[in-house]
């Protein structure tokens, strides 16, 4: 099995490839290949990269493999349909990652079970906690006053890809895919979300940190789907922020940081959650950064230490988006911006946060 370092290197090579072809999903294709490689199915990388290159470079229309269509009427219906259809079937939510993967022939399901026509799957409810229906689109979250109760959620939803993708893509689809470069994972980790699922053996409530196991890997079992994502509303004097660095809107981020702070008073921090996105195989909790702030006043010196801890936790590799050093520094800079914005919000200030595009 290749060393972690080699895998990360391969992932970023895939990103290089994506930069060449201007195809964000071709990079994902190659990433997929690497994950399969890691699971010791060695014929995958070569084949996938070749296929992705041929398809993305050819400029011809890309058709997914033929599949049979099944429209689910309810979640239990969807679960039993997928159970009957077996391993060659997949759920379709917004499709903003699955469809490109199918067009690149990296995912070739024989059956799709469409969740989009199940009534009552898209909602945002606030009643002590925030509840998001599985098929709630990013755009709905971005424009929701309820979701804005936790500004970090708005930072995330409003900054995913571009308006077109946000209109289709869903919060649960994003988490179920567990793409290491996805935006929702660091944010839902920082806010302590719970994932509610339904499978052949009934429902489960799973803490988000137990839900994502590895790149593209969750604890979801066959025929199990996400029904709802629950995010606890924070106490007073709590504030969070999520900031990513992206080359442009539709591509995956180069680095991202999510911070949620809860203060004892205006100066002393009671609790901090700091997660680094993109620069690892999953979103990474930066314990060392959290410890710097725990029960301490947030001073410029401590913020500098948080940045150092985030930089130390990053596992960047060089690619066309920048050198490893550049990405490490970017992670540190994002951490500084995120802590500063989170602190202001925890103190009750309204702060607009936007991703950096460079």
């Amino acid at each position, binding site marked *: 099995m290749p060393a972690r370092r080699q895998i990360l290197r391969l992932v970023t090579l895939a990103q290089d490839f994506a930069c060449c072809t201007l195809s964000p999903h071709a990079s994902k294709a190659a990433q997929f290949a690497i994950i399969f490689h890691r699971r010791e199915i060695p014929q995958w990388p070569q084949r996938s990269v070749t296929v992705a290159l041929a398809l993305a470079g050819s400029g011809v229309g890309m058709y997914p493999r033929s599949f049979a269509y099944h429209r689910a009427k309810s979640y239990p219906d969807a679960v039993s349909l997928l159970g009957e259809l077996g391993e060659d079937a997949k759920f379709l939510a917004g499709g903003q990652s699955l469809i490109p993967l199918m067009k690149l022939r990296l995912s070739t399901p024989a059956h799709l079970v469409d969740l989009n026509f199940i009534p009552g799957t898209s909602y945002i409810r606030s009643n002590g906690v925030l509840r998001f229906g599985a098929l709630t689109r990013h755009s709905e979250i971005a424009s929701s006053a309820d979701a804005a109760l936790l500004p970090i959620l708005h930072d995330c939803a409003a900054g995913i890809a571009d308006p077109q993708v946000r209109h*289709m893509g869903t919060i649960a689809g994003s988490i179920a895919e567990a793409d290491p470069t996805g935006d929702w994972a660091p944010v839902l980790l920082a806010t302590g979300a719970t994932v509610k699922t339904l499978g052949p053996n009934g429902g489960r409530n799973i803490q988000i940190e137990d839900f994502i196991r590895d790149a593209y890997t969750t604890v979801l079992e066959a025929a199990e789907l996400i029904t709802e994502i629950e995010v606890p509303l924070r106490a007073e004097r709590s504030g969070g922020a999520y900031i990513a660095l992206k080359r442009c809107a539709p591509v995956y981020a180069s680095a991202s940081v999510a911070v949620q702070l809860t203060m004892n008073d205006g100066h002393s921090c009671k609790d901090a959650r700091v997660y680094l996105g993109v620069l690892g195989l999953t979103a990474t909790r930066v314990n060392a950064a959290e410890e710097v702030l725990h029960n301490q006043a947030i001073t410029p010196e401590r913020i500098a230490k948080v940045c150092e801890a985030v930089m130390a936790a990053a596992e960047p590799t060089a690619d066309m988006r920048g050198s490893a050093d550049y990405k490490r520094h970017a992670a540190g800079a994002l951490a500084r911006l995120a802590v500063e914005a989170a602190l202001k919000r925890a103190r009750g200030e309204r702060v607009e946060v936007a991703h950096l595009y460079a």
Partner: protein
Amino acid sequence: MPEGIPRVRVTVRVNGKQYARDVEPRTLLVQFLREELSLTGTHIGCDTSYCGACTVLLNGESVKSCTVFAFQSDGGEVLTVEGLAKDGKLHPLQQAFSDCHGFQCGYCTPGFLMSSIQLLEEHPHPTESDIRKGIAGNTCRCTGYQNIFKAIRAAAGQGAEIGD
């Protein structure tokens, strides 16, 4: 198409006209529009959800039609670039793109128009930042966007929303 895979019925209102077609499940919305309905104004650019040339409005919201299956539009409403001009008169936004020369080669212009329509729906008087964010899914790799910004600003507040 392999034997035994049933077609899926897609019933959709496109530019105000009702259509029903039985298509292969794997048919993408852009192929449905171009090949089934012969509405070739919607262009395929990158075909990987990057460039936005294929943008249409699905139930009033911009989507990249190369990354939506036709069946996802079933029972819904689609607006394409062909639905903008009324009675032989260009939509104000189309006129503004023409007046300001808001294109480079013009291939991706249908997508820019549809994203701009969405933008002006949400922000009738957009700031520079609103414009940049609103068309961020279309500014892909070439240059010459200044005239597009100019066209959107010119059309803003002149009734460039849908239906006017």
